[in-house]
């Protein structure tokens, strides 16, 4: 099938992930950025657009300008975006629009943070709780895990399923991470381990929650005509969509359907494909419940059935939908806005056939999804090998 690329993901790179003592936010940005540019076969001077996200350890009003200066870049387009875990995906959409409009030829999207070693764990948890409404949520002691716990509790109630359906996701992600030499957590876990882990906010336990890691990731988004010829498959952006319904969980229209439904619907329609066409999916998994809700909302599984599917191995490498083959935020790592970018890097590797032990045989079509806030901001990308 001949597909028309909207843009190419010409380069991709992520740094080491996990606990990286001595790392800095800007240093991580530079390592990922230069790696992605090199991977694209480009020179730094070829980059004419720069999109960044945000940092908690080195917060700055103009992070993109700081990163450009740090890299020695003087781009014609330079901006920092902020959509939580959806930032990377949304930045890729913006980069595509910039190359399609002719403003840029090669846009560098780079995100990262030394969130583990640069902040105390308490500091990170407290900073994240700032997404709660200052008047109507924060005074109740609502943490991000607690907000997702409200969604999880409702999910378990509506579908009458046990917490093993949540735990199955954590186990599946760890199984994937075991095949990735760079993953933050690789030690296998069982359902019993998840169910015996410390309670965080019922029904979510420690192993239902994503990691806090250091790391960075970058891609180069290029105009299809601007990319050097290489021997490996080219990775094309074929479709993309977003969905935004709320910011605060208490203003979500409901706790069953979220913006992932709309984001995926738009992306599938643009790419001219359906969920069953996807060979490998890399989907934001900030908590086990996040992945269940997204898989169902996006049309991969019927409502209330994704957990049972995970229990039966559907998300494994040889399953019906290999999902988060790097281990996801739950086991590969979660370094602020770079967390969602790790999913994108993994999709690129899969489509190039460079995923080593994790390779999904013959993967030609991948879906990447990011979620920011409390399932608030969503972006979906459909990528294909061409």
């Amino acid at each position, binding site marked *: 099938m001949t597909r028309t690329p909207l843009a190419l993901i010409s380069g991709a790179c992520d740094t080491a992930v996990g606990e990286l003592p001595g790392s800095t936010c800007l240093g991580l940005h530079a390592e990922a950025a230069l790696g992605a540019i090199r991977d694209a076969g480009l020179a730094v001077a070829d980059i004419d657009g720069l999109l960044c996200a945000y940092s908690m350890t080195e917060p700055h009003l103009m992070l993109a300008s700081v990163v450009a200066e740090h890299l020695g870049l003087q781009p014609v387009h330079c901006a920092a975006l902020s959509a939580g875990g959806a930032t990377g995906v949304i930045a890729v959409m913006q980069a595509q629009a910039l190359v399609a409009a002719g403003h840029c030829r090669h846009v560098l999207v780079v995100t990262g943070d030394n969130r583990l070693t640069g902040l105390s764990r308490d500091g990170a948890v407290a900073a994240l709780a700032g997404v709660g409404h200052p*008047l109507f949520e924060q005074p109740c002691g609502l943490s991000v895990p607690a907000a997702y716990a409200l969604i999880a509790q409702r999910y378990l109630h509506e579908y009458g399923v046990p917490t093993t359906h949540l735990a199955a996701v954590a186990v599946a992600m760890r199984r994937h991470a075991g095949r990735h030499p760079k993953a933050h957590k690789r030690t296998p876990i069982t359902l019993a381990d998840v169910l015996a882990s410390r309670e965080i906010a019922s029904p979510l336990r420690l192993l239902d929650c994503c990691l806090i890691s250091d790391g960075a990731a970058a891609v180069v988004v290029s105009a299809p005509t601007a990319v050097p010829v290489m021997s490996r498959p080219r990775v094309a952006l074929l479709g993309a969509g977003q969905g935004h319904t709320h910011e605060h969980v208490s203003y979500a229209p409901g706790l069953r359907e979220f913006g992932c439904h709309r984001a995926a619907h738009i992306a599938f329609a643009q790419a001219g494909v359906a969920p069953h066409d996807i060979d490998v999916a890399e989907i934001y998994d900030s908590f086990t419940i996040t992945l269940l809700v997204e898989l169902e909302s996006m049309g991969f599984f019927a409502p209330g059935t994704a957990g049972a599917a995970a229990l039966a191995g559907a998300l494994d490498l040889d399953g019906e939908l290999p999902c988060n083959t790097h281990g996801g935020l739950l086991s590969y790592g979660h370094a602020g806005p770079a967390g969602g970018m790790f999913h994108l890097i993994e999709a690129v590797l899969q489509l190039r056939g460079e995923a080593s032990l994790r390779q999904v045989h013959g993967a030609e079509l991948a879906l990447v999804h990011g979620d920011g806030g409390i399932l608030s901001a969503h972006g979906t990308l459909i990528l294909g090998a061409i």
Partner: protein
Amino acid sequence: MNEICLGSAEIFRAGCARGELCYQRCRDCGAVQLHTREHCARCHGLQVGWAVSGGLGVIYSHTTVHRAPTPVFRDRVPYVIALVDFAEGFRLLLNVVGDARAEVRIGEAVRVVFGPGIDGQPWPQALRCAGTAD
């Protein structure tokens, strides 16, 4: 004074001090909203009025928090948070208080009471209708 000039958060807080749970209703389209603002989020008109809730609601979802987000909540764990659907049509996040608060269940009836919030000022809380106050 036009009440909008007071700031909607202040009107809400003043209601709490009187033991009243105030919410907004659009005078133009009738939409109900709780996250208070100076306009109607449905029709975007500016004729937003205030009403007092009867204080009765139903648990939409809940969680018991064991890991506090900030130091101020650390000595309160475990505490219970719930999304409560009030009879007037708005949803509000509240702490559930009273005996057996951890036994709260989805679909259960609660009523609003006012107790000291984190700033010590009166703030709404949910009490299980079958339960008793602290």
